[in-house]
């Protein structure tokens, strides 16, 4: 089964969402009318569900660059799995993957593999529940929930078994069931399909169709959630653009820090949506420098105390800039603390070890490393000192571990650096 998180959303051209919704709702009403007039058979209902699942599997929601991904095929396939076993879901998954134009061969194969395994295990789980709960009235609901949960768990485990970088590069997805949007959509969708399965299995198919109406808003809801994430992404890009314009050196610096921070975040075992926030924080960690005099920042000499004090305001100003923006609440705290030190001698608040967020520590280490080494181009080196080699920079990071930098973060960064 392809899983709520198995695929991902490209919103290049905005679809007329409202009219799509109206047409879908009308389609549902027409379907219910036909069933009502012609009589409902379980087979015809399964055929309809299969068609809907096929369409969903072919048109997954994918967030570009954002680890939130969703597809409704799992929700639609769960009742089929419960009532008819794994074969129909397997056929649907294979057909949908084979007909996906945008996906590469590797992605298709991986999705088919995961889908087949999920469907098989989901069937086993559902049949076990039906066997054990056979006299109980709620067995259909429990079986549907089991099928969905087992399929989801198999999906996650299978994705985790892939090498992370390969998963990110080839599958371009990362299943993240714990963002509030996907969790809400999964819970509501699962309850709706469970009730619908129960009604179908106990002989109330028209009522089952009514219950399935509850699935209608889920896709638009997920789309809207993903669009919100896109707005956040664009806002971050614009702010980062402002910084690059006022201080061109930062362009490469910010990108490098963001890339390394993402890798180190994964290395430290942070969940994907958390790593995504960390990436944003790394992109915007120096955004407060738009409020700082460029002549001081780019001065090819050692700064005076007064000038250094002027530069030090950038972390607090960056946090102030992001303070009221929805979606940036956590990030602004991390940005505020990215120049704090473990020994409490940092700025602006003078926080010590436990009070400094882990994400700020990650940004601090990578920021310092990049400041010491600079980029590959000449204009990316700092004006006021000669760049160090990576080995020298790591030696410096080691020397300051425990006082300025978090040793765990330094170790994780070194591991990531070696692998790269």
């Amino acid at each position, binding site marked *: 089964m392809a899983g709520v998180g198995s695929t991902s959303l490209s919103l290049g051209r905005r679809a007329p969402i*409202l009219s799509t919704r109206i047409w879908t709702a009308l389609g549902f009403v027409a379907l219910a009318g036909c069933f009502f007039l012609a009589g409902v058979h379980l087979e015809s209902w399964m055929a309809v569900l299969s068609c809907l699942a096929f369409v969903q599997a072919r048109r997954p929601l994918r967030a570009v660059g954002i680890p939130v991904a969703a597809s409704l095929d799992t929700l639609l396939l769960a009742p089929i799995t419960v009532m008819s076993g794994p074969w129909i879901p397997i056929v649907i998954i294979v057909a949908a993957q084979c007909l996906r134009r945008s996906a590469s061969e590797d992605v298709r194969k991986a999705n088919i593999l995961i889908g087949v395994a999920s469907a098989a295990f989901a069937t086993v789980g559902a049949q076990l529940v039906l066997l054990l709960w056979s006299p109980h009235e709620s067995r259909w609901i429990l079986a549907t929930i089991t099928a969905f949960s087992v399929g989801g768990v198999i999906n996650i485990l299978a994705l985790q078994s892939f090498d992370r970088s390969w998963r990110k590069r080839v599958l371009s997805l990362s299943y993240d069931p714990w963002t509030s949007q996907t969790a809400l959509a999964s819970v509501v969708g699962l309850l*709706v399909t469970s009730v619908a399965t129960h009604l179908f299995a106990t002989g109330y198919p028209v009522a089952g169709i009514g219950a399935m109406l509850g699935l209608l808003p889920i896709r638009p809801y997920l789309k809207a959630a993903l669009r919100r994430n896109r707005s956040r992404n664009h806002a971050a890009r*614009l702010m980062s653009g*402002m910084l690059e314009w006022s201080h061109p050196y930062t362009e490469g610096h910010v990108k490098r820090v963001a890339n390394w921070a993402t890798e180190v975040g994964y290395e430290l075992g942070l969940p994907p949506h958390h790593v995504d926030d960390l990436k944003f924080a790394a992109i915007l960690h120096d955004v407060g420098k738009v409020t700082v005099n460029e*002549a001081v920042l780019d001065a090819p000499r050692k700064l005076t105390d007064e000038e250094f004090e002027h530069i030090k305001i950038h972390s607090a100003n960056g946090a102030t*800039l992001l303070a009221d923006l929805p979606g940036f609440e956590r990030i602004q705290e991390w940005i505020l603390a990215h120049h704090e030190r473990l020994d409490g001698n940092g700025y602006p608040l003078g926080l010590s070890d436990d009070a400094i967020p882990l994400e700020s520590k990650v940004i601090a280490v990578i920021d310092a490393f990049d400041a010491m080494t600079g980029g590959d181009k000449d204009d990316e080196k700092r004006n006021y000192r000669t760049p160090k080699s990576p080995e020298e920079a790591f030696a410096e990071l080691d020397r300051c571990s425990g006082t300025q930098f978090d040793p765990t973060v330094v170790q994780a960064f070194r591991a990531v650096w070696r692998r790269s």
Partner: protein
Amino acid sequence: MSFHWSFLVCAGFATAASMGLGIWTGFVEPRRRVRFGQRFLRSIQKGLKLRAPVVESYFQEVDALASMLCQKCHCPKGLVRRANLLRRVGFCGVSYELLNQAPFDFWSTRELAQFESHLEVAIRLSKKAPFLAREAKVLEWIDRPYFLHQSSEGVYFAARVLRLAFDYNLLCSTQGLDAARETVQAHRDTYDPILVDALAEVLHWNRDVSRSEALV
């Protein structure tokens, strides 16, 4: 399970789920996006206040004048205000020292040109944020003269309002009130005659003595 009971369960559930998520996505979402845009622009304003407080206060004057013009011409001032906020993005392209230097009337032509380049920077940067596409379009149309594009549609009208408010304020700062008034009147066809008349009414050009005369 009886039919009535199951029917009630599914109907209730479907209604609750449809209403909750439907309202959330269908009705609340567009407003949320506009709110996000507004809050983002306010953040930008905060940034400019920290970078160049003098210029920010100047822009607030432009905001006030543009609002008065909108009120006079019965056009919605939200878009004008948001576009003017987005314009502030361009100040990252103007040097910190210039923005915090002497007032406009002491600037050289070169410095004034550098200051005015902020619009170009704002237009280029605003392309990175599609959720501000309408405001970005207003900025793109600011420099186009009225006699070439006489559309009264919201975006174009907002662009003309902003241009007149900004230019008038800048002229007042650099040349004085009387010269600013004369220049604006002389370029009625460039700015939009209706707006120039509205500006004359708003600032009581026809009734009162000018502020400069009053000061004398």
